[in-house]
C-alpha cells in the first residue's frame, strides 16, 4: 500500500439539487501515482462529484484539500492552479479553432499584449512526446477524429501542469483498441507521478486499469477498496444495489435462414457529405421481421447519417433503400405512415419538444391522421386519450400535478425515453398494430440500469410481435446482449452482418477501428483474443 500522504482529500462532500441528493457525505483520498476509479451507474453522482472537485459546482458542505491546502470552492481557476485537470465526457473544444489555440486558452494572463505561440507550441510538442500523445498543433479541431480530440483534451490538462487528472467516462467514445491505448497512456502518466481519477460504469475497464475503486450509488459512497483481489460480483452488486435481471436474448436464426422478404433492405447505399470522404459508402444491409440487427461502431463513423437515412430525414445519393417492399421518399411522415418506429439519438433535442406538453409530444407524429384531426381541426380529447394510454402502457412517470399538461422537459431522461418509445410503437388506428421496423439509435444512452432493462424488454416484446429491429449503438454490452446479427460501421462502410456467434471481441474491435472489413478472412494471429461472444 502506498505510504505517501494523500495528494487529494475529499471530506464530507454533500450536494443537493432541490430534493435530490446528488452527493451525500462523500469522503475519499487519492495519492500520487495512483489510479482511483469512480464506479457507479448513470445518475449515481460521479459526474457531480468531479464537477464539484473541478469547481463547476459548489458543494453544500464538505472540504477539498490538495496537498494539505484547502481548495476554494466553485472556481475552476483555483482547481487548475492547484494542479487539477479534467477531461470532460463531452469535449470542451472549439471546432473552428486549431489544436494549439484550444490548448493555449487560458494559459496566459488576459492582459498580456501578445501570445507567446512559439513557446506554447514547444511546450505542446514536449508534452506530446513525453506522454506519447501525437497531435498536429495546427489542425482544425473540427476535422479531427474522436480519439484525436480526446488526446487534445488530455494535452490541455497536461500542458497546464496537472498533477491530478480526472477522466469522465473516457472510453465511451473509443474502440476497444483505442481504449487499450488510453490505458497505456494512463499507466505512463502514473509512472511519472500523476494521480488519476477514472470515472466509469464499466466494471471490466475499472478492474483492468485502476489501483483502487470507489463505488457510488444514489449519491453515496458504498464501497472503497483496492482492486487487487476485489470480488467482481460484490462490486457489481454494490454498484447496482439489487439484483436486476439483465435482459439477454437467445439469438434467433431468422436472419440466417431468411424466410421472407426483408422489412428493410439497403443495397449499395451511399451518401456524399461535405468532406472528401463520403459519409456513407456502399452499404448493404437487411433486416427481417422478428430479428434484431445491431450496428456497432465508435461515434463519428457515419452512424448518425445512417440513422437519418433510416428515419426518413435524408435521401441517399446512390443505391436503393426499400422498406416493406416499397421505396419511401425522404419525408419522415411517409416513414411514420409506413409503420417505421424511430427512436432518435438525442431525446431532448430531436425526440421531444421540451416546451410542449406531454400529450402534445405524444401526438407529434400522428397529429395529421384522420383520427386526431378533422379538416385541420384538432380533436384534442382523442389526442389526450391516446396520450393517456401511452403513459399508462409504457409507465411514463412524471408531470406532477399537471399530469399530461406538464411540459415534456420536466420528465426525467428515462421517462422521456419511455414516452418517445411509446409514441413510436403506438399506431394511429384504434387497434395499435406493431410497427414493421424499429430504428433505435442509442436508445439507452444516459439511462440508469432499471430504465435500460425496461427498454430492452419492450424492444424484445415488439420484436416477438413481428417487428424487425435495427439497433445502432456504441455500447457493445447492449449489442452483445440483444443482437441476432451484428455489423460494424467504420468510416462510412459497413461490414457484413454476421450472426453474433461468429464474432470474437477482438474482431469486433478491429472492425470498429477500420480493419476487418468484409472479405477479410479470420486470421489466427498468435496471442489474439479468441474469447467468443455469447
Amino acid at each position: 500500500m502506498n505510504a505517501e500522504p494523500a495528494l487529494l482529500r475529499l471530506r464530507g462532500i454533500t450536494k443537493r439539487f432541490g430534493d435530490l441528493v446528488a452527493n451525500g457525505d462523500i469522503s475519499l483520498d487519492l495519492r500520487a501515482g495512483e489510479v482511483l476509479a469512480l464506479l457507479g451507474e448513470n445518475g449515481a453522482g460521479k459526474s457531480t462529484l468531479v464537477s464539484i472537485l473541478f469547481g463547476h459546482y459548489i458543494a453544500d458542505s464538505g472540504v477539498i484539500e490538495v496537498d494539505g491546502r484547502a481548495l476554494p470552492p466553485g472556481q475552476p481557476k483555483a482547481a487548475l492552479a492547484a494542479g487539477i485537470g479534467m477531461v470532460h465526457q463531452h469535449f470542451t473544444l472549439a471546432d473552428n479553432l486549431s489544436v494549439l489555440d484550444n490548448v493555449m486558452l487560458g494559459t496566459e494572463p488576459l492582459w498580456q499584449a501578445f501570445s507567446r505561440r512559439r513557446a506554447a507550441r514547444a511546450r505542446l510538442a514536449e508534452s506530446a512526446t513525453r506522454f506519447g500523445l501525437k497531435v498536429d498543433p495546427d489542425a482544425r479541431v473540427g476535422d479531427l477524429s474522436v480519439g484525436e480530440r480526446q488526446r487534445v483534451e488530455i494535452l490541455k490538462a497536461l500542458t497546464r501542469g496537472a498533477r491530478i487528472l480526472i477522466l469522465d467516462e473516457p472510453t465511451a467514445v473509443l474502440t476497444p483498441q483505442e481504449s487499450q491505448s488510453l490505458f497505456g497512456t494512463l499507466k505512463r502518466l502514473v509512472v511519472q507521478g500523476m494521480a488519476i481519477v477514472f470515472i466509469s460504469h464499466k466494471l471490466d475497464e475499472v478492474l483492468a486499469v485502476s489501483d483502487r475503486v470507489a463505488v457510488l450509488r444514489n449519491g453515496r459512497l458504498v464501497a472503497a477498496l483496492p482492486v487487487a483481489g476485489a470480488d467482481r460480483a460484490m462490486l457489481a452488486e454494490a454498484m447496482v444495489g439489487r439484483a436486476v435481471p439483465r435482459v439477454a436474448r437467445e439469438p434467433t436464426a431468422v436472419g440466417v435462414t431468411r424466410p421472407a422478404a426483408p422489412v428493410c433492405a439497403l443495397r449499395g447505399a451511399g451518401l456524399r457529405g461535405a468532406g472528401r470522404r463520403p459519409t456513407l459508402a456502399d452499404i448493404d444491409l437487411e433486416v427481417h421481421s422478428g430479428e434484431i440487427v445491431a450496428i456497432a461502431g465508435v461515434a463519428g463513423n457515419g452512424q448518425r447519417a445512417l440513422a437519418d437515412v433510416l428515419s426518413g430525414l435524408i435521401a441517399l445519393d446512390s443505391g436503393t433503400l426499400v422498406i416493406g417492399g416499397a421505396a419511401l421518399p425522404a419525408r419522415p411522415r411517409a416513414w411514420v405512415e409506413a409503420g417505421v418506429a424511430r427512436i432518435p439519438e438525442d431525446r431532448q433535442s430531436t425526440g421531444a419538444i421540451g416546451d410542449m406538453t406531454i400529450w402534445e409530444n405524444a401526438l407529434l407524429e400522428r397529429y395529421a391522421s384522420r383520427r386526431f384531426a378533422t379538416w385541420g381541426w384538432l380533436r384534442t380529447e382523442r389526442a389526450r386519450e391516446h396520450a393517456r394510454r401511452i403513459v399508462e402502457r409504457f409507465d411514463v412517470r412524471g408531470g406532477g400535478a399537471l399530469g399530461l399538461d406538464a411540459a415534456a422537459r420536466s420528465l426525467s431522461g428515462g421517462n422521456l425515453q419511455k414516452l418517445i418509445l411509446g409514441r413510436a410503437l403506438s399506431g394511429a388506428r384504434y387497434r395499435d398494430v406493431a410497427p414493421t421496423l424499429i430504428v433505435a439509435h442509442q436508445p439507452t444512452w444516459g439511462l440508469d440500469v432499471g430504465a435500460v432493462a425496461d427498454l430492452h424488454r419492450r424492444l424484445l416484446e415488439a420484436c416477438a410481435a413481428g417487428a424487425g429491429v435495427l439497433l445502432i449503438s456504441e455500447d457493445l454490452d447492449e449489442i452483445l446482449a440483444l443482437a441476432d446479427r451484428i455489423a460494424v460501421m467504420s468510416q462510412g462502410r459497413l461490414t457484413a452482418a454476421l450472426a453474433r456467434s461468429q464474432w470474437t471481441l477482438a474482431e469486433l474491435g478491429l472492425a470498429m477501428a477500420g480493419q476487418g472489413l468484409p472479405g477479410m478472412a479470420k486470421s489466427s494471429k498468435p496471442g489474439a483474443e479468441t474469447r467468443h461472444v455469447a
Partner: protein
Amino acid sequence: MLTETLDLLLGLPFWVAVLRIATPLILGTLGVLLCERAGVLNLGIEGIMVAGAFAGWLAVYQGSGLWTGVAAAALTGALFGLLHGWLTVTLALSQHVSGLGITLLATSLASYAYRVSFPKVESPPTVQPFSDMSAWLPLPVLNQQTPLTLLALLLVPTLAYMLYRTPLGLAVRMVGENPDAAEGQGLSVPALRIGAVMAGSALMGVAGAFLTLAAFNAFYFNMVNGRGWVCVALVVFASWRPGKALVGALLFGFFDALQLRLQQAGSGLFGVDVSYQFYLMLPYVMAIVALVVVARRAAYPQALMKPWRKGER
C-alpha cells in the same frame, strides 16, 4: 456615358467620398463583429448609433472638445452595451428581442433628450465638426478625411491583432465558439461576453458620433437611416474577419458614392430616366445581395445566439 463614368472613377473627389461614407460602416461593422465573435448578436446598433450621434454632438455643443465628444459617444454606446449584455448574458433573454428593444430605447431616448434640450428650434443647431487632416498628412484622399477616419482605419489591424494574437482575443473567440471550453480553463464567460459587447457597442457609438461630428455638423432625426442594419449584414459578408469588414465597408461606400454621383449627374441609368429613389435603394439592395452571395459559406461562430447557462453541460 462610359467616359463620364471613367472620369468620375479616376477623379480624387469620388474616392474621398467613398472613404467618408465608409467610415461609420467600418466602425459599426467592427463593433458588431466584436459582439458576434463573443457569441452575442447585437441588434441594438441602429439605436446605439443614434444615441452616440446625439451624445457626441451634445457634448460638443455644450462646450467640450471634439475628442471628448467622441469619448462621450463611446461611453453612451458602452452603457447600452452593458444593458444588452445584462439582458442577454446574465438573464439569457432572446438576443433578437433584447437588441430590438435597445434600438427602440436608445432611439426614443435620444429623440426625447434632443427635444427636451431644444424645444423650440426649427433647424438643428450646429457645431464645429472635425476638420480634415490636410494640414499635417501628405497622403492623397486620406488627407481630406477627418481624424476619425484615420482612427477607423487603424482600428482594423488593431482589432485583428487583438483577436488573433493576444490571449484576450483568443478568450473572446473561444466564448463565441464553445463557452464551456472557456469556463473549463478558468475564464469567466459572462465577463468576457459582456465586456466584448460593451466594447463593440462603444465602437457603434463612435460610428454614430462620426455622423454628427465629422460627416455633418448637427443632429438630425433619421440620421442613421438603416446604416446600422447594413453593418449587421456586412459582418456576415466579412466572415467575421476585420480585414474583410474593411473591404465590405469600402465596397458599400463605393456603391453609395456611385449612386450619389449618378443622381447628381442626372444622366440616368444607361440612358433610362430613373427616379432618384431607385438610386437611393441601391445600397440596401447591395447589402442584401452581399448576404446572399456569402450565405452558403458563412462560418458562424458556433455559439452565436446560443444562451449559456453555467452548470448546464
